[in-house]
């Protein structure tokens, strides 16, 4: 009898203490250098300030949309906060899989009192999306294979006479068709009007067709750095952070071609279907992790620009390399002479249709 009551007491204590000690929170992100930058800038300080929270990292962002839908249908959402690109956030919001966020209530104001809505500005592209970073898709080229005249213009990718060798492009239409039209003489402001018509799509594909045999198509952002390092391609598109790591950390003979870089956003969403306690905990984390200082801190570990205007002046040096990070940001004025922002609305409507055409074109 005595033993039994001791056992019960011990079990109750164990259950009670685990509940009180560690409140698990699963945060989903992309893995690699990106996750470790978040771990250093957000997770560690958050856990230090909130000893009751235990953050579990999951590296499933690449399949987040499909997995969230499956979890939602099964009625068992195991993720608390998810890192996705803006276009996926829009899709999740449309499908009712992400919570709507009220910037005034759920996000911290800037230190000088500017409201979060103004601080993020136009980057709040969806009601469910809290932006973290601005990244860009841009080109890197082998400095040892371009002779005395390194490319400075996006149209160098179509100039196989001057820059012979293979190019790495992403295996989807986004960005590629825009670059093709720019180099086919379409003004930047008219690109989507042209793409809206079947002739415009044909025109873009025809331009891409001029280099089709010289392209290695990638589907994961890590492929281009590898292809550049191996000398398989002379130039290739990928995310600027990957190129930064290749150039500054791996010291490869590669340089950036910032011209016509495409800005895109990455940030958080909170899945729908969480219990009120978990939702509150997720919102508390978001409030902390997207404040001005935290966003600036992340740029110490990876070369992506913070999404808040108020964070930009706080960007310092790289935590390990000790180099100034500001010139490596895609948003730096020197790099951002000619840019465009991913047109979310247009691509949300036309992505599937254009992708089908693009894949059919690729297969032929």
């Amino acid at each position: 009898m005595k033993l039994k009551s001791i056992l019960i007491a011990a079990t109750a204590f164990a259950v009670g203490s685990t509940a009180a000690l560690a409140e698990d929170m699963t945060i989903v992100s992309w893995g690699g250098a990106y996750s470790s930058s978040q771990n250093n800038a957000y997770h560690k300080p958050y856990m230090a300030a909130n000893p009751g929270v235990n953050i579990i990292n999951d590296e499933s962002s690449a399949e987040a949309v499909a997995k969230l839908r499956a979890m939602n249908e099964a009625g068992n959402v195991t993720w608390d906060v998810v890192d996705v690109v803006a276009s996926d956030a829009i899709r999740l919001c449309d499908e009712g899989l992400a919570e709507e966020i009220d910037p005034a209530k759920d996000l911290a104001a800037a230190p000088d009192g500017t409201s979060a809505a103004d601080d993020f500005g136009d980057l709040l592209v969806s009601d469910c999306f809290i932006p973290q970073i601005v990244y860009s898709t841009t080109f890197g080229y082998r400095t040892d294979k371009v002779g005395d005249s390194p490319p400075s213009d996006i149209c160098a990718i179509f100039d196989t006479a001057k820059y012979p060798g293979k190019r790495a492009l992403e295996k989807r239409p986004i960005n590629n068709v825009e670059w093709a039209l720019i180099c086919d003489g379409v003004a930047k402001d008219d690109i989507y009007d042209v793409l809206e018509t079947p002739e415009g799509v044909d025109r873009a594909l025809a331009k891409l067709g001029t280099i089709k045999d010289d392209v290695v198509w990638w589907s994961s952002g890590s492929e281009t750095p590898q292809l550049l390092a191996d000398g398989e391609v002379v130039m290739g598109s990928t995310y600027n952070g990957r190129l930064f790591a290749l150039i500054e950390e791996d010291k490869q003979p590669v340089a950036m071609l910032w011209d016509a870089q495409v800005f895109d956003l990455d940030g958080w969403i909170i899945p729908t279907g969480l219990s009120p306690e978990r939702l509150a905990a997720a919102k508390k984390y978001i409030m902390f992790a997207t404040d001005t200082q935290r966003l600036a801190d992340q740029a110490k570990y990876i070369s992506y620009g913070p999404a808040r205007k108020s964070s930009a002046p706080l960007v310092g040096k790289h935590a390990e390399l000790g180099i100034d990070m500001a010139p490596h940001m895609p948003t730096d004025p020197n790099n951002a002479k000619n840019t465009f922002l991913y047109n979310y609305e247009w691509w949300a409507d036309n992505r599937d249709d254009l992708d089908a055409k693009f894949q059919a074109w690729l297969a032929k």
Partner: protein
Amino acid sequence: MTDQTHAQTVLTTQDGVPLKVSISRALRRQKLRSVLLVAPLFLFILISFVLPIADMLFRSVENPLVPGTLPNTVVALQVWDENSGEMPPEEVFAALAADLKVAVAAKTHTRVGSRLNYENPGIASLFRKTGRRVKRFEEGDYTAQFLKADKKWGDVGVWQTIKQFSSPMTAGYFLAAADAQRTADGVQFKPEDERIYLFLFGRTLILSVTITITCILLGYPIAFLLSSLPLRSSNLLMILVLLPFWTSLLVRTSAWKVLLQQQGVINDTLVWLGIVGDDSRLALINNQTGTIIAMTHILLPFMILPLFSVMKTISPTYMRAAKSMGASDWYAFWRVYFPQTIPGIGAGSILVFILSIGYYITPELVGGTSGIFISNRIAYHISFSLNWGLAAALGVMLLVVVMVLYWLYDRIVGIDNVKLG
């Protein structure tokens, strides 16, 4: 008297129960026990395998979103003739306004938008945009208010799409999976530059057959060697066959990248030997060649293992007998040994073919554009476009193709003629 004769003719057990009843009871108990023993596995397969697949396949015809979210509009649209080329009447707009107000409150209007956007690009933003406005709509003249919210509501094509997908079941996904669409003149193929799925089905089949054949050509001699060597050395060889089998698929695929790329080991060696020039390095990866090489390597053990286990059971005395009666080596092999290995070839081929027809990750990594399979498109629709209905329809078609081929195989070779050992 009758009781007595009855008792004599019917055999009973010691406690007076007729033997027949007692036996059937015992048998029933036995049967029940075996059913209970199988039940956990049966339930496991049913719950974790059959039901989810059935559910997934059912999505290829299901279309609950449109009639569920826009019930009044669907009813109002019934009177409208979609081929008239005219706009629907005011009642339809009024019904849509009522439906959208409910849907916006429940935040389901954007889901209908995404669903219809698969069929008619632009509807997603149309619903998103109109959803923001519809709360402020006033009573009366809904047509004008919708047109003011977005002029795209004046496009008859939008209404045709809504009407086309207003029933709870749809053949739309299957049409899309067969590169077809419904037009005013009935079902027609899509324009040439948008057709992709049938082409990919064809390529998947051709490449899978090629991979199966190369697996037979490479696997047969190895299995023969394995089965004819003494146990010690054959065990060592067997480990060499199995070692890659235990290595991660991604590691093996990445290793092929290092070997096959243009600045890779094989090309470097060939250039160094002077067999190919530095400017004409072979393209061995990011094309069909890459897919065939990498997948043959990955699937080879599935060919070797059944072949080996069948060859192991063939007694060497048959060959000796044939030779002692004057057959040449080749004749004895071809007429005596080879026919006995056919069940192994059959089993290996089915395994390799069916595995390769559904392969996804290797073609994605080494196939470039000319070496990708239909499963890569299925994966795209599952994880990126979220068009699960189309993915399910493509999956059903793939399943049907495999079943037809299996049936053909059974008719031609006979499924009893397959042995795994």
